[in-house]
């Protein structure tokens, strides 16, 4: 029923939308998600042909080319067959007309009904959207923001449109009202197709069959909403979902590094992308169908940074790691959760090459890891449980942090010292001469752990394996170090394999969780899902234990 072809909207020199291709079938609903400034509202308005800018391309609505219709013909469609409901803000409703008249007007001016019948129809609509009868002849300023929003939705629904465009429709409502209004919208407009623009992922998930992720005026990912939102495949989509405050994971608010910039060449996301390569800077990736999902990315979406296949380790009779298959994607945090003795640390050591696997392979960005040279350790670094043990007591802070630079022979001497100071500041430690000459046993536990983090980060690795990095710290220090890791991950786009016995900690920081028991991964999936609906009895047991502990506090 609706088809966009190479839609392009620009205001003067500035291109707001670029090469948008979309298709919507009868009764289908699509959510357009993006941060503010991505071009959502422009997209919504261009479907009404109400943008000021110049519009190129094609918008086909049931065979009509909206962009070439004469003004009267498009006016026939507006508010009648295609309706638009904006987000309520000050003066979205006309302050000098009663709300009933503002609803009825849509009906009478399209000559669909006479005044009386239109009034009746408008009353029915208003009450079905939950406006009390005694408010019908009220003026907008006499209503609450939520009520005003409902009036806007009633106006849009007035003529039972075939296509309803909702521009951030319900962000001004509180959570319970939202759910109710979504139901109402679906009910009042049966058989209607929806386009919903929103930055609110949960609205999108509830209201729409499909989602399109908009970034800097282009669609970067398109697919069924359930699939895209639970398993994003474009790096931006994942970042967006990650920074969405979702009560179910409790993962701290974490954005994507940098800000949106429309003026870059190539893939507009590349300055913020953790896996950008040469071509990303030069060419704009087209939206292509890649394994059942439309993705605009030169690398086909998020690539696995490190994966293991069938990885096993046997100590005499004990199978410590049993045919483990995990994948860590670029820029994500995978939490490996399990009790002590479940084989987590052994798995980490296998990846680092500290012990040899009995069986199985490890891949770093699709290439098999055989003998680990300097190159491997530049990309993969690890921090250990007990900083006191892992730091040599004979070296000063400066020497400790510089050590890996020395080994990798990076830069001249003073360049290395500069890098050391910089990384110390990054982990929120002093970079004074005095501190640089300090020896580990003079440091506090928190400082020591920060030094080990600095040591790992100074090489700018792409994957950091953190083995119970906070287990030895008291809870306030724990929180600080976790925050630091999240901050560093965001700034550097680091991937994190976070090993912990505490599912509560895992839930705070991870995108995905893998649960390990007796050397086997018994369950893995998005953190939200593992926490809210654990599939394995063992996971439930771990969650229960974490809950009990937190209740004791």
């Amino acid at each position, binding site marked *: 029923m609706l088809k966009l072809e190479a839609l392009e909207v620009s205001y003067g020199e500035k291109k707001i939308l670029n090469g948008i291709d979309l298709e919507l079938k009868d009764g289908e609903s699509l959510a357009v998600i993006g941060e503010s400034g991505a071009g959502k509202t422009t997209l919504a*308005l261009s479907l*009404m042909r*109400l943008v000021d800018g110049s519009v190129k391309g094609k918008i086909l609505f049931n065979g009509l080319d909206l962009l070439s219709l004469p003004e009267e013909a498009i*006016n*026939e*469609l*507006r*508010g*009648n067959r295609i*309706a*638009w409901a*904006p987000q309520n*803000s*000050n*003066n*979205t*409703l*006309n*302050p*000098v*007309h009663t709300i009933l008249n503002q609803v009825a*007007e*849509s009906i009478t*001016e*399209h000559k669909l009904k006479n005044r009386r019948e239109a009034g009746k129809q408008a009353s029915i609509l208003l009450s079905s959207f939950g406006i009390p009868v005694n408010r019908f002849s009220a*003026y907008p*300023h*006499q209503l609450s923001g939520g009520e005003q929003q409902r009036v*806007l939705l009633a*106006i849009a629904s007035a003529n039972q449109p075939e296509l309803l465009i909702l521009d951030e429709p319900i962000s001004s409502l509180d959570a319970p009202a939202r759910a109710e209004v979504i139901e109402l919208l679906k009910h009042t407009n049966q058989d209607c197709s929806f386009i919903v623009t929103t930055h609110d992922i949960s609205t999108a998930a509830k209201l729409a069959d499909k989602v399109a992720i908009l970034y800097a005026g282009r669609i970067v990912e398109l697919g069924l909403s359930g699939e895209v939102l639970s398993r994003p495949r474009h790096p931006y989509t994942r970042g967006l979902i990650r920074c969405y405050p979702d009560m179910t994971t409790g993962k701290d608010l974490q954005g994507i590094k940098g800000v949106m910039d429309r003026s870059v060449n190539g893939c507009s996301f590349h300055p913020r992308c953790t896996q950008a390569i040469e071509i990303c800077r030069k060419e704009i990736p087209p939206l292509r169908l890649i394994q059942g999902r439309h993705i605009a990315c030169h690398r086909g979406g998020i690539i696995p940074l490190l994966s293991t296949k069938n990885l096993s380790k046997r100590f005499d009779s004990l199978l410590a790691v049993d045919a483990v298959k995990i994948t860590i994607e670029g820029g994500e945090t995978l939490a490996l959760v399990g009790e002590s003795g479940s084989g987590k640390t052994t798995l980490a050591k296998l990846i680092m090459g500290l012990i040899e696997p009995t069986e199985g392979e490890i891949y770093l960005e699709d290439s098999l890891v055989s003998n680990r040279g300097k190159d491997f350790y530049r990309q993969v670094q690890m921090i250990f449980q007990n900083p006191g043990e892992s730091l040599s007591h004979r070296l000063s802070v400066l020497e400790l942090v510089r050590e890996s630079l020395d080994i990798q022979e990076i830069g001249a001497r003073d360049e290395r010292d500069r890098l050391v100071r910089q990384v110390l500041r990054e982990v929120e430690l002093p970079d004074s001469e005095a501190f640089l000459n300090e020896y580990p046993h003079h440091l506090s536990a928190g400082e020591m752990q920060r030094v080990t983090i600095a040591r790992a980060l100074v090489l700018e690795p792409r994957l950091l394996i953190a083995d119970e990095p906070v287990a030895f710290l008291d809870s306030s220090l724990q929180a600080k170090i976790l925050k630091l890791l999240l901050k560093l991950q965001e700034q550097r786009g680091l991937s994190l394999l976070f090993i912990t016995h505490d599912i509560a900690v895992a839930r705070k920081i991870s995108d995905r969780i893998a649960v390990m028991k007796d050397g086997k991964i018994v369950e893995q999936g998005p953190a939200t899902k593992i926490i809210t609906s654990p599939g394995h009895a063992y996971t439930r047991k771990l969650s229960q234990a974490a809950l009990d502990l937190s209740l004791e506090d």
Partner: protein
Amino acid sequence: MRNVITYVIAFLFILTLNFLLPRMLPGDPLMAIYGNEALIAMTPELKAHLVERFALDQPLWQQFGAYLLALVQGDLGHSYYYNSPVSSIVLGRLPWTLLLVGTALIISTLSGIVLGIESGWRRGSRRDKSLLTSLMAVSGFPDFFLGILLLIGFSVTWKIFPLSGAITPYSGLSGAALVLDVLHHLFLPATALTLSYIGASYLLTRNTMVTVLKNPYILMAKAKGLPDRVVRYQHAGRNALLPVITQTGIQLGRMVTGALFVEIVFAYPGLGYLTYEALLARDYPVLQGVLLIVAVSVLIANFLVDLSYSKLDPRIRYAH
């Protein structure tokens, strides 16, 4: 309610001023109150009567009391020039001024609003630009000057309209013919006033339209698929109206002053022309009477504008 109090205070202020001004003038207060003409007719009995009537031998506050008492009784004093009560002179002239100012006010405001809406709807269009230039040019002239131009053109040269007065004297017209005669006389002075005041409401409407059009409800109205005319008048124009109505109230005072001059140009027998005659004759009681009546009428008109304003803007109507 607070509004009403403001009006009461303004009203009392005007009364007090009207009472005090002549009494503050140096010299004989009787002379100041009654003007030259009175002196000629002045006899000791009359003087004694007047002193008593105005309580001039009493302290000021008692004089004020006497003044108010007289007012309440509808007594604005006596004109010795016309030899009749001031109130009847002033009230006899008042309708002509009301007719003139009322006509000009309504026409200039309404047409200013309509032209302003049309102009502001597509700002920068050819229509907007030509309207803007011509209206600005016309209202750049002072009202009496426009009056003189019209008078010379239409009455003296082309003789389409009468030279002076409000009706043809001694014509014995009645009914429709009388109405036509009145309109015929009204046309030029009303046009002069209208033309010189249309610019203000036009300009304000046009500018208000520009800001009103930026409001989200305009986009909403368009998205409803409403015809252009409805968006322009029901949605944009209706909102652009509000400041214009306020301005009309303020305008009114200025327009009354303007009318005084225009009336003189056309010898139109309203309060303006009366003032002119009274000034020439130094007929102080009449001057004071006119001043009082004009001030009070402007006050009342302003009050009405205030009332209509709150009718037009529900945000004020339901503010409490």
